[in-house]
């Protein structure tokens, strides 16, 4: 805070003697103080305090971990951290004034361009909070495109937490969810079941590929076909798109993905980056910010936010969403990461990760009593494995041996199953250790 001389001079200028006079409009009866909060500390003490508390955490670096379920610990190149560390980016607000914010606007435009290529979709917005809230926004958008219908179809393996977010987002306009079956043996969509649930009241369907079991959907063309004009929302893994067919290829209307994996630490699941892409003809129904290329009065190329008439600050209760602050800096990290990797780097990354997950599954499958993967469908960086003992007991035992083997699944009948993920950080030694301690505890 600036020095006291400033305060004195400003008080004098206002012809008052104490700053309290500026609070005279708050009635005495409404006064309150910050009782229970400590007083301030020096920076050095703050650092010490925080380091002490954080020392109680065990980071993923200290323990081989195979945790995924929507947040993944990929390597973040130093250059990416360095660039998103630029305080011109960090300490700026939303670029409402384009002339003084061209740098950020261009970076965000580049993000849109690269993400459009990766997803194969025409339009990408400038971020939603995370994948899960992105799904909520996608269903709301789909409902705006199919005004008469009220049911949205979701796979029956969505975890309860994601369904809860979806319901919270979509109850307002009266959208109901109905589940279609994921096949118990392939782990992919049960087409017959899906087909039987589509009728005039269907808004659209969510297809996750890979889905929550890590299984890639191999029937996307059939699904597109049986949907006719209804809305196909695809939830895709961004890393997988280096080698897996992009949703734009098979006629997705809206694509949701998680950008955390591209250049961002796991951060206990936040900040994340909700990626949303759609067809251009639907853009006026899309939520979130969009950057457009334009020119200045001297005809020089320039960038600005566009289509703001969909947004809350103009349309208020009629806006396509309430979103205002988003995940812009995470978006910059993602753009930087993509340009650092390039298309070929992203492809190599995806190949490597897929080979690593195969290796791990193969190794686990060789341990007696273990089945990996559980489902016959193709998987990318994550798969379900079945163990001869209860999964939570197994997790506990493996934790004690110094690894985090995966995430428990809440679906009935999957008490002995774990969702196991790898990233480009997973080393052969990590895999070895997994299998070794698995043998020890079983």
């Amino acid at each position: 805070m600036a020095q006291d001389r400033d305060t004195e001079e400003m008080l004098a200028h206002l012809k008052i003697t104490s700053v309290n006079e500026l609070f005279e409009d708050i009635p005495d009866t409404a006064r309150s103080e910050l009782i229970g909060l400590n007083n301030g500390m020096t920076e050095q003490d703050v650092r010490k305090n925080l380091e002490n508390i954080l020392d109680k955490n065990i980071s993923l670096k200290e323990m081989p971990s195979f945790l995924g379920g929507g947040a993944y610990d990929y390597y973040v190149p130093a250059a990416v951290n360095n660039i998103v560390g630029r305080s011109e980016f960090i300490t700026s607000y939303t670029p409402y004034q384009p002339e003084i914010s061209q740098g950020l606007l261009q970076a965000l435009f580049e993000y849109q361009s690269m993400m459009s290529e990766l997803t194969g979709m025409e339009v990408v917005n400038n971020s939603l909070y995370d994948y899960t809230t992105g799904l909520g926004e996608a269903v709301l958008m789909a409902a705006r495109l199919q005004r008469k219908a009220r049911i949205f179809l979701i796979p029956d393996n969505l975890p309860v937490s994601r369904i809860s977010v979806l319901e919270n987002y979509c109850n307002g306009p009266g959208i109901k969810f109905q589940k279609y079956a994921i096949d118990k043996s392939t782990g992919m969509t049960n087409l017959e079941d899906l087909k039987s649930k589509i009728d005039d009241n269907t808004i659209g369907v969510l297809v996750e590929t890979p889905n929550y079991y890590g299984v890639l959907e191999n029937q996307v063309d059939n699904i597109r076909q049986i949907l006719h004009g209804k809305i196909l929302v695809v939830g895709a893994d961004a890393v997988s798109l280096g080698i897996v067919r992009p949703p734009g290829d098979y006629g997705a209307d809206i694509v949701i993905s998680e950008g955390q994996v591209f250049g961002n630490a796991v951060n206990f699941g936040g900040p994340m980056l909700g990626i949303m892409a759609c067809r251009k003809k639907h853009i006026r129904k899309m939520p979130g910010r969009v950057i457009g290329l334009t020119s200045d009065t001297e005809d020089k190329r320039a960038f600005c936010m566009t289509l703001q008439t969909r947004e809350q600050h103009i349309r208020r209760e009629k806006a396509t969403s309430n979103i205002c602050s988003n995940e812009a800096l995470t978006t910059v990290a993602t753009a930087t990461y993509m340009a650092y990797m390039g298309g070929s780097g992203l492809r190599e990354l995806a190949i490597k990760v897929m080979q690593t997950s195969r290796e791990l599954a193969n190794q686990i499958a060789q341990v007696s009593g273990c089945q990996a993967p559980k489902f016959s469908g193709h998987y990318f960086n994550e798969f379900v494995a079945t163990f001869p003992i209860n999964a939570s007991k197994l997790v506990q035992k493996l934790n004690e041996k110094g690894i985090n083997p995966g995430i428990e699944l809440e679906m009935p009948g999957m008490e002995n199953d774990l969702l196991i993920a790898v990233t480009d950080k997973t080393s052969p030694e990590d895999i070895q250790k997994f299998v070794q301690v698995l043998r020890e505890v079983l």
Partner: protein
Amino acid sequence: MSYRQAKHDEPLIYELTCDDAKEIPIPSDLLPEGLVRKQTPNIPGLCERDLVRHFVALSQMNFGVDSGFYPLGSCTMKYNPKINEEIAALTKASTIHPGQPISQIQGTLQIMYELQEMLAIITGMGAVSLQPAAGAHGEFTGMLITRAYHEKHGQDRNQVILPDTSHGTNPASAAMVGYDILTIPSKEGKVDLDALASAVSDKTAAFMLTNPNTLGIFEPEADDIADIVHEAGGLMYYDGANMNAIMGKTSPGKLGFDIVHLNLHKTFATPHGGGGPGSGPVGVIKELENFLPAPVAAKCGDGYYLNYDIPDTIGKVHGFHGNWGVFLKAYTYILSLGADGLTQASERAVLNSNYLRALVEKFMDVPYPGLRKHEFVASGSSLENDVRTMDLAKRLIDHGYHPPTVYFPLIVDESMMIEPTETESKATLDGFARALENVVNEPAEVLHDAPRNASVRRVSEAEAAKNLILSYKDYLEFQGGSRV
């Protein structure tokens, strides 16, 4: 006028020469035909040197609080202490997974728990959830809680009332939850009690308000407002965007509010990142505690855990637990300032605002008399020769200032909303006021022509909306098509 922003003709990433894009073959046993991506994604890969130079050039064409004064009203663009960034970047902080067992994340849970407690004290609320990822997301969560509360009491209430000074996210958030919006006009810049009294009914679910309001005026009849709404059976919702004005002086709880959201990226000095990530914790009075999103961080003996056992919980609003990276920065900030520091921050924010207002009202209209809190709204409505507030804003850029918020709130014609924050010196405020006065007196041609010293001249938003060039691909098509 010494300011010059960098003016690079920085190419787009797609226009930079990059390493030879190789077509990478996919091992044939990896994926079946129907799943394979045939072509390598068309994404340029830059070598590290060129990548860094590209983004450094871009950053030089971007203005942040670290570049200079950023009096963007309603956004509380205070200086963000660097310690916050360093703490959040520690491996023990950043490399933590939400799927780790609680024994491995005791540090994280302790910080979340203590932050919840700190924010409860600051807002005068009974309990806090950190899950919402931004202010608007907090409003949305608050409206879900409102709905759940009324449903639990068998009440069918479908209206949310708000004043015409409210931020756009307020009506948008309430509408998302399914509420009809009833907007009431303000009287002399404040809530019109008569209008409110005649608006409330057994249909009223909540009244949303920020206090001080978006004109920077403290609502003097806060008690009566709360009484009217409560008597009608509605809840009082506090938009905490303006919390920076009242810390340690009063609190939403004391003012009769039932639900509050905060913007950690405003009041609690977490940087705004060019639009986010933010964090929008929600606080509620004791009576509403059981409706909070699950889980919340809780304490048991010396240990911490995630409490999912919240009887009437609305469930979840985020994929995980909210923006942990932002919590840490806010926690660091609150620990640094403490009760005394936060109170002084509000005092200085209000002093800076009233001082700057006194300077500005000598040459611009500042409608509505009386004290201001942390911000004030001037009006460019008496400007002549077709000069608009937007022109002043653009010209301020030439003087090295980020423009204030313009055209919000909507009830002031040609509004310019100025929020200096507590972290600026008197010298900065004096300099800004001088610059603004100069600008107001400049010829219309100069103002219409501004800015001159930014990386580009006035940007055509109309052209952007007309052409809709939203990717490099669009750009190539556009150039091949309608533009020669």
